[in-house]
Structures are given as C-alpha cells and as structure tokens.
C-alpha cells in the first residue's frame, strides 16, 4: 500500500520540539494550484501571520477572480467573493459596517492592476482600514497565460507571443509605487517568494501590513512577487530562479512607505 505519510509522530521521539507545523488556518485540503505556484506559499504565510496575531476569528476576507478564486476553500476564514477587480470596494463595504472586523483583500495582478485599478486607487485614497495582499506573477494564470499589466517587457505570453512590446502593449505598471504616493496609504511594500530567505522577509511584510490595520487603522498593501511556472513555461525551480534574478529589476523589493515608522517618507524609494 502506498504510504501517505513519511515520518510522523511515531518515528520522531515524543519529546521532540516542533520547529514548524502546518498552520491551523490552512484548510485540510489539497489546493488546485499548480505544482510550485506561489499562491500556495502566500496562503500559507497569511495563515501563519493571522494565526500568530490571533486575527483568524475576526477576519472577513475578500476573494478575487483569478487562480485564487477558491481561496475560501483553503483558508479557514469568513470570505466574500468579489467580482473581478472589485475586492477593494467589497472590502470597503465590509469595513464600513463591521468596525471590529479585520478586513483582508487578496488579489492577483489582473484583478488589482487591470480591471480593478479604480477600486484599489480609491480605497487607498480614502485610506480604508484594510490590508491588501497583492500577488503579482506578471501573467493571467487562470485564463491560460495572457499578458498582465505587470508582465515584463519582452516577456512572452499567449497574448504577447512575440514578447511584450511597449509600443503596442505599454509598460509594466508600478501600481504599488503609485499607491505609495497617496496620503491615505499607511504601508506599501513589495516582497518575493523566490527562495526561503525572501519568503521569510515577505512574511514580515505581511505581518507589518496586518499590524498597520490593527494598530493604526490605516490602509496597507503588500505586493508579493510570485511565480506562475505553467504560464511562464518553466519548472517550479526555474520559475523561482527567474523570479529571483529577473523580476526585481522591474519591481524592486522593499518598503515603499511605512507612515508610522517614517512620517516623512522620501517618495517611492524602497529601503
């Protein structure tokens, strides 16, 4: 019979300290995400952070349209589905009538930076006390790998088969830098899940973004650069390598603004 577990409590010594355990806020199911997809990592980080901060019981989360449309099956939180791009508006509605809730919007690059640009800009401009997790893998995964606003110049997608050409398809959109300019934005940062070190730093950014909502009642956005191995036509490890080596030139990592630790931020320069 095929084993379903390798190792396990019967083979570890009973007094062994647990260094890492699957977070409780992750549902006990396999996800539909492709092997190596960054969404799985980001979901896991969210579950860890919300668990660490004790926010699970009062979170109302907003699910996007995109590969993460089924996020509500994977995270043990109250969830409302939003039409494509509208998550920040849906989150605003939740926020305004549930003052005690922790409000989270989870969006991909098409959701946030294409069809939903008005909604994210105005939620940020209003300084809505929500936390936005923006997963940017530079492609439209769910619909089969078309160009996203954040697709890199020269990148081949199914709607830019010759590589993205700025003359016809424009330039990658630095939406988080743009949002960081707004006085209503309390925290804007960009991380990556390219390797364990980046993952650790990304977790800290997510945690800070959650704290900014709770402690300061301000708008926070964390952009997480992620991979789409299938859409990019790479193995998961190749995709992680590409993410580490090639993407930050267009989308630099760092904190763009943290208004509560630096009241006078200098433009959008990452630190």
């Amino acid at each position, binding site marked *: 019979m*095929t*084993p*379903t*577990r*390798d*190792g*396990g*409590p019967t*083979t*570890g*010594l009973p*007094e*062994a*300290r*647990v*260094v*890492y*355990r*699957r*977070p409780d806020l*992750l549902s006990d199911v*396999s*996800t539909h*995400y*492709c*092997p*190596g*997809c*960054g*969404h*799985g*990592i980001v979901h*896991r980080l969210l579950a860890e952070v919300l668990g660490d901060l004790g926010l699970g019981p009062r979170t109302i989360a907003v699910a996007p349209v995109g590969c993460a449309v089924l996020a509500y099956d994977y995270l043990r939180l109250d969830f409302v589905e939003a039409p494509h791009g509208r998550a920040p508006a849906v989150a605003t509605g939740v926020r305004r009538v549930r003052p005690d809730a922790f409000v989270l919007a989870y969006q991909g690059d098409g959701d946030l930076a294409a069809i939903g640009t008005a909604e994210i800009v105005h939620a940020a401009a209003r300084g809505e006390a929500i936390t936005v997790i923006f997963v940017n893998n530079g492609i439209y995964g769910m619909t089969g790998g078309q160009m996203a606003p954040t697709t890199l110049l020269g990148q081949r997608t199914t709607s830019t088969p010759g590589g993205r050409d700025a003359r016809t398809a424009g330039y990658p959109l630095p939406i988080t830098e743009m949002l960081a300019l707004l006085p209503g934005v309390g925290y804007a940062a960009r991380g990556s*899940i390219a*390797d*364990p070190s980046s*993952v*650790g730093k990304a977790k800290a950014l997510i945690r800070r973004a959650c704290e900014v909502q709770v402690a300061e009642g301000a708008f926070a956005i964390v952009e997480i650069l992620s991979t789409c*191995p299938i859409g990019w036509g790479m*193995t*998961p*490890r190749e995709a*992680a390598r590409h993410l580490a080596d090639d993407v930050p030139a267009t989308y630099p990592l760092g904190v763009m603004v943290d208004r509560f630790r630096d009241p006078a931020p200098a433009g959008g320069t990452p630190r």
Partner: protein
Amino acid sequence: MAVAAPASRVPLPARAHGHAFHPLDIELDRCKGCELCVGACPPAVLALDPGIVNRLGHHPVRLIDPARCTSCALCARICPDAVFTVYARPRETAR
C-alpha cells in the same frame, strides 16, 4: 515503476530499524513534486521518490538522509502545500 529515475534523484536508503530520529513528517499525498524544497535544502537531503505515485499523481518528496537533516525548516518555509512538519533534533540522540 517502469519510468527511469532522472539523474538528480538518488536511490533511497532502506529505513533504519529501531528508534531513529526522523526530523521531518511529510504529507506524501499533498506533495505536488515541485522540488522547491529540494532546491532549498542546504544539505541536499530531500529528493522525489520515483517509486511512489501519490494520490495527486505526483512523485512526492522524501527525506533521504535523516541523519544529515538539521531541522532548519527551509523546506517548510518554501513549500506551497505545507506538507512538512519539522521537529528539532533532541540533543541526546546520536546521529
């Protein structure tokens, strides 16, 4: 399995008998064989097991040399499917 194992996948040693400390608990049926953990593991003690096809249709990852695992948990940190539980090695245990 009739499929030839790729060169990067090492044959797995037989499990030692008795109380061998096993630092990792892996949910084999949730692994998708993405190998991000294989690339992340500093002592390179993780590998996909070509002898198993799990419920999802993948070759899952196995800990091939428990003695050299340091419980650093980088595998757990990079895993998109949260298949790992990581235990710290008790000091009394001989390697």
